């Protein structure tokens, strides 16, 4: 209903009609929201909500079955000393680790935790569409129910929007009902907020279930203004179509403070409806331990230390 067809001219005219983003204004709005003071009961609520929104991630060349298994154990029960801590939103790994992660989760009480696979020649996206399709097919066959694909930033920046659009459509087709599609914009390479807004709409119109900031391999990643612009995009897309698309900031969110700022952005931009792991995820690894430490502090009144949270 947003696009008459997927031709280059139709996509371009659709994106051209989007309202521009003023960088200074977006930066200052994000900075203002970062001053919100979240204390006591609301802080505890935010910490637990953030834990349930984490896509607990390991995306290293050095990943091994042992490392992934340990991550899955942590995903199911983030704080071994406290079973009231919720499990995380998902586990996010490379394709070849999907099966290991799935099995380990299933065997350890984490059946309801989805496995997300980074796909389509992650992180650069520099491969043929055919390879990207097979990459995705492979991930789903291995048990991934969430696909984090990357867009072709080169195509986007050179104005070849049809290519970006078509690739998303193709991957979405493969996902079908089997997997949720998260589309990674790699905003650090798109640079301008106008580009972020355009790429967000392009991805949503092409069928993304989630739009995601970054691969985590490029800086800057999930900066507050970029997340703000993406949250505005999903809010506006909902007003146009009645369809809620999720947002996933990833990369650079390491502390409880960072995570709470993200939740404030969600609350005061897209609105409370998005404060749900179905519509907001945080791609992170180190963040979880900081959330756990802060939670322990709130419960006990004392800071523990790094050795009181598990390493994985």
């Amino acid at each position: 209903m947003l696009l008459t067809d997927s031709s280059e001219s139709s996509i371009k005219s659709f994106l051209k009609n989007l309202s521009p983003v003023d960088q200074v204004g977006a930066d200052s709005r994000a900075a203002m929201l970062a001053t919100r003071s979240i204390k006591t009961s609301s802080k505890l609520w935010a910490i637990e909500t953030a834990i349930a929104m984490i896509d607990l991630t390991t995306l290293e060349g050095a990943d091994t079955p042992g490392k992934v298994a340990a991550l899955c154990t942590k995903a199911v029960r983030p704080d071994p000393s406290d079973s009231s801590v919720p499990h995380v939103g998902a586990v996010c790994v490379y394709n070849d680790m999907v099966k290991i992660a799935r099995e380990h989760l299933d065997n350890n009480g984490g059946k309801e935790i989805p496995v997300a696979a980074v796909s389509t020649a992650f992180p650069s996206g520099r491969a043929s569409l055919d390879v990207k399709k097979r990459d995705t097919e492979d991930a789903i066959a291995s048990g991934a129910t969430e696909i984090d694909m990357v867009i072709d930033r080169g195509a986007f920046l050179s104005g070849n929007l049809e290519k970006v659009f078509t690739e998303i459509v193709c991957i979405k087709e493969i996902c079908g009902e089997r997997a949720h599609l998260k589309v990674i914009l790699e905003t650090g390479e798109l640079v301008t907020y106008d580009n972020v807004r355009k790429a967000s709409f392009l991805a949503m119109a092409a069928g993304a279930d989630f739009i995601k900031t970054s691969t985590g391999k490029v800086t800057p990643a999930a900066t507050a203004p970029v997340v703000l612009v993406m949250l505005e995009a999903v809010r506006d897309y909902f007003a146009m179509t009645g369809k809620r698309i999720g947002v996933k900031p990833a990369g650079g969110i390491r502390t409880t403070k960072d995570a709470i700022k993200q939740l404030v952005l969600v609350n005061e931009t897209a609105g409370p409806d998005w404060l749900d792991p179905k519509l907001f995820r945080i791609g992170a690894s180190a963040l979880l331990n900081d959330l756990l430490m802060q939670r322990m502090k709130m419960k006990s009144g004392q800071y523990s230390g790094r050795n009181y949270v598990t390493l994985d």
Partner: protein
Amino acid sequence: MKFEYAPAPESTAIVNIQSEYNLFIDGKFVPSKGGKRFETINPANEKVLSRVTQATASDVDKAVKAASEAYRKTWSKLTGAQRGKYLFRIARILQERAREFAVLESMDNGKPIRETRDTDIPLAAAHFFYHAGWADKLDYAGLGKNPKPHGVVGQIIPWNFPMLMLAWKVAPALATGNTVVLKPAETTPLTALLFAEVCQQADLPKGVVNILTGDGATGAAIVNHPGINKIAFTGSTEVGKIIAKSVASSKKALTLELGGKGANIIFEDAPIDETVEGIINGIYFNQGHVCCAGSRLLVQENIKEELLEKLKRRMSMIRVGDPLDKNTDLGAINSQAQLMKIRELSESGDAEGAERWSPQCELPEKGFWFPPTFFTGVSQAHRIAREEIFGPVLSVISFRTPSEAIEKANNTPFGLSAGIWTDKGSRILWSAQQLKAGVIWANTFNKFDPASPFGGYKESGWGREGGRHGLSAYLKGDFS
């Protein structure tokens, strides 16, 4: 799920408010000769904060004599660098005591702590730093060779930004070598009295800054005192006119920073989300108690509905309540009198056929409160389009073409501020050339910097404050 923000009140333990205050004359707090005391209250809960002194004509005389003697004997004998030293010292003390000032300002004025903490007090310190730098460079300010101070200046400041307006007045006056008799507003005297302590702490020579609390009668005594060489006033156009008349028959120099009815012009290609933020900032910042507020929203008719939908959504997220809560966006109206004025003008809007809208918001029972409000269906002839409301009330007017926008924007007796929202650079420049306003913001609103001159056209006042232009108001030379 709902994300409730738990109360996050700033502690008031840092401020030490005395039960009574005397006048600050010749470096000391001294009792008045016959002046009564009056209460200053916290407008958010109507509790009495302290009792301050109503300075009499004889107190004014004493303060002017102290300022005059300080000018002759000490301040005019110092080099610019030596004056600068004191200004730098004051600036640093303001930064060190920023939290104390921010809390006190919020309590006495009713404005949110977020604003006093992030805007009022940092900017006040910045004005002292900026002018400290000028003190020894006045020969190079482009104001002629060796420009001279006026001597004793009388300064009368308003209640909307008490400490910031004090800084706008005192910093350039001292940097240029004048001495000061300053009267803070009747409803917000406390930060000026705390500033008097800062002057003592900075070892500022006695009599260089004198602070007299009081009402309009005290102000009139300052304006009419023959020992004063220059008057600087910020406040209503009504009082500004009276001062202009009083000063007309004397040799006193005069600068006036008066009211406004700023137009915030939204063109169809504006960056819409940032524009909505700019509208909010333009009219709901500081409860709309801002002389340069963007109180008239001129929106291109073809985007009006979309813009108002977004504005409504955003306004429903404004957090109204306890000014000391760090998450409060809109605080208390400064006084009962101001609340009555806002109500009266808003009711005139209803009566004249405009349509009022406010989000659902619970207002505290005690204190003076008014919800964020806008009116649609406003025409140029309505009182709410012409008169300064000085509250969180926006009048929405539509236009069809750029020229119509400019005509409507300029169709006011005021000329203080304007905002232009468009993605086209050429349209920003074209509009700015046509608008008769002292300050024009493009794709932003209510941004202040000590280096940028501020002031009005027409009934919004004479002279500029801030920047190199602001210095000239406190100097005599070839340029004047």
